[in-house]
């Protein structure tokens, strides 16, 4: 079994401030996981804002250099991809989908120009017909067509449509790994499921691995194969999604699960913040202890 992505002992520390008041933030501390090349899966990273999810994604994409540890994609680190050709080869295999579809596209360019640029530089399509075919093919996969979006500007499309176009663009080079950073958080609730189902379909039919970053427990539950839960840069619990989410063991995981709003409870006027003792247990243990393996396949940070 070969590995697609190997994240080993990765840490990221941001230093802030000047000469006299130096401060640092540990955005990611000692993260470890691997994705296999043979079994495409949806690997979910979940946690609150500022827990290091996006930093982790940016490091995998090679946009940030980790302070410590290695990220190997198909056996190569970002430092080894130092030529343009090597970087292009990497981008052919790994593609991102960003959180805010309205900021993903240049407001002064037609959105299909992004698809075209990707088809030309990553797929190597030369003729107009080849480029159009690649664009239409990718758009069909997300339930759109080139006819619908050709010549349209970002402000002329809805958030859901734009996010589909973003996914279509990412699919053009036939990547092995898609990094979706909160792809549904800015999309209308009614369209959310169509995007989530799309990710599921990509895994099942196109055999694309997806790193799905979210703070939404419900969609994570629905599509994830494996999950890691992050709190303040630390992985507090990781393992098979069902196992972890059915019976969360770490206090922070329990807090996350109990914080999911229930529509029924809201309808009865019964929305309460999580149990105080539970919240305190979660926060007092932030960043403490070491990951310990359990029999059911999960790893939990215990003191």
């Amino acid at each position, binding site marked *: 079994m070969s590995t697609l992505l190997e994240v080993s002992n990765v840490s990221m520390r941001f230093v802030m401030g000047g000469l006299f008041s130096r401060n640092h933030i540990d955005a990611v501390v000692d993260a470890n996981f691997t994705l296999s090349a043979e079994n495409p899966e949806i690997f979910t990273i979940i946690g609150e804002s500022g827990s290091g999810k996006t930093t982790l994604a940016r490091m995998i994409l090679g946009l940030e250099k980790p302070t410590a540890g290695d990220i190997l994609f198909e056996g190569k680190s970002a430092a080894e991809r130092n030529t343009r050709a090597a970087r292009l080869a990497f*981008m052919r295999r790994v593609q991102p989908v*960003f959180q805010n579809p309205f900021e*993903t596209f240049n407001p002064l360019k037609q959105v299909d120009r*992004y698809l075209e640029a990707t088809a030309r530089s990553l797929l190597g399509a030369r003729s107009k017909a080849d480029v159009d075919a690649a664009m239409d093919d990718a758009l069909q996969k997300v339930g759109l067509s080139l006819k619908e979006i050709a010549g349209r500007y970002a402000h002329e499309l809805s958030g859901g449509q734009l996010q589909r176009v973003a996914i279509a663009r990412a699919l053009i080079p036939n990547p092995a790994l898609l990094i979706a950073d909160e792809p549904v958080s800015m999309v209308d609730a009614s369209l959310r499921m169509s995007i989530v189902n799309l990710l599921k379909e990509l895994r099942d039919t196109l055999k694309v691995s997806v790193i799905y970053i979210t703070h939404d427990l419900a969609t994570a539950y629905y599509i994830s194969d494996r999950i890691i839960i992050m709190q303040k840069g630390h992985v507090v619990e990781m393992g098979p999604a069902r196992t972890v989410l059915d019976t969360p063991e770490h206090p922070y995981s329990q807090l996350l699960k109990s914080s999911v709003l229930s529509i029924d409870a809201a309808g009865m006027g019964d929305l309460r913040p999580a149990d105080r003792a539970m919240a305190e247990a979660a926060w007092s243990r932030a960043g403490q202890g070491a990951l310990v393996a359990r029999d059911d396949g999960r790893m939990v940070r215990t003191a």
Partner: protein
Amino acid sequence: MPSFILFAFKRFLQLAAVIFAGTSLAFVVAKLSPISPVETIIGRVTNRASMSPTAIQSLRETYTELFGLDIPLWQQYLNFWGRLFTGDFGPSLVAYPTPAIDLILLALPWTVGLLTVAVILTWIIGNLLGGLAGYYQNSRLLKAVGVVAIGIQPIPYYIVAFLMVIIFGYLWPVLPISGGFAMNVRPGFTPQFVLSILHHAILPASSLVLVGMGTWFFGMRALVSNIVTEDYVTYAELAGVEQRKIVSSYVMRNAIVPQLTALAMALGGIFSGTIITEQVFAYPGLGTLLIRAVNGGDTTLVLAVSCISVIAVATAIFIVDLLHPFLDPRVRVG
């Protein structure tokens, strides 16, 4: 597209209103001048020969009637508009009876030639360097340019101009420091004359570029450093777009829209002349003409120069507004 024509028509009505208001205001301000053109001329005449008080009085009455100053102000105002529609600003009062427009047409090519080149050069250099400085934030060379620009920016323009005159006209006398062309060259379409004009324009033009560049530089640098952190730039990088193309067509292209608007307004401002530049470098042009007119109480000429600059600025803004939908697809017409 009929909605665009409707939009253009509405904007044209606005343009007409602005020109009407601006010109009327210029009329009032010119008439408020405490310097009387009649007294200026009488002063000039009595300088050379002594005259009896009755002769002076009759001279005064003749000139007042000749200049049309004996009728009420509102009638003068109506006459002014009546003439303006035929493109006639009336005779210059100090250089009577030369038409004011003739004096302006004589001065205009100098001002417009010098300032168009200076404004466009300033804009290109400032925006290019500013854009690059915003994108390549770690470049030492571009940081140095920023330091120089921020150092020159607060110095008043006339000091920079005088320093350049001292440096290039006295300490290291390589450039002519006054006039539009050399005395010994006959005006005409000859290579010597053109070269002489270019030679004389170097110093005033480069003083304008040096001082004006900073504004564009800092504006563009701020715009670009905002844009490089946008998702769509990162996204273009991950889509494999070449860096050169990202700088030009994703970053600079988006930053340039407000800068183009400002450029058009700066170009409209050319017709007001640059009084200080023309004074420091003794350059013939609208600024010099305007000063002469104000000092002589030549209301017609002052009014003519102001009208032309009001019309030029308003028209420039009008043109920019019409072009905006083509520069930015998000601008809705209507």
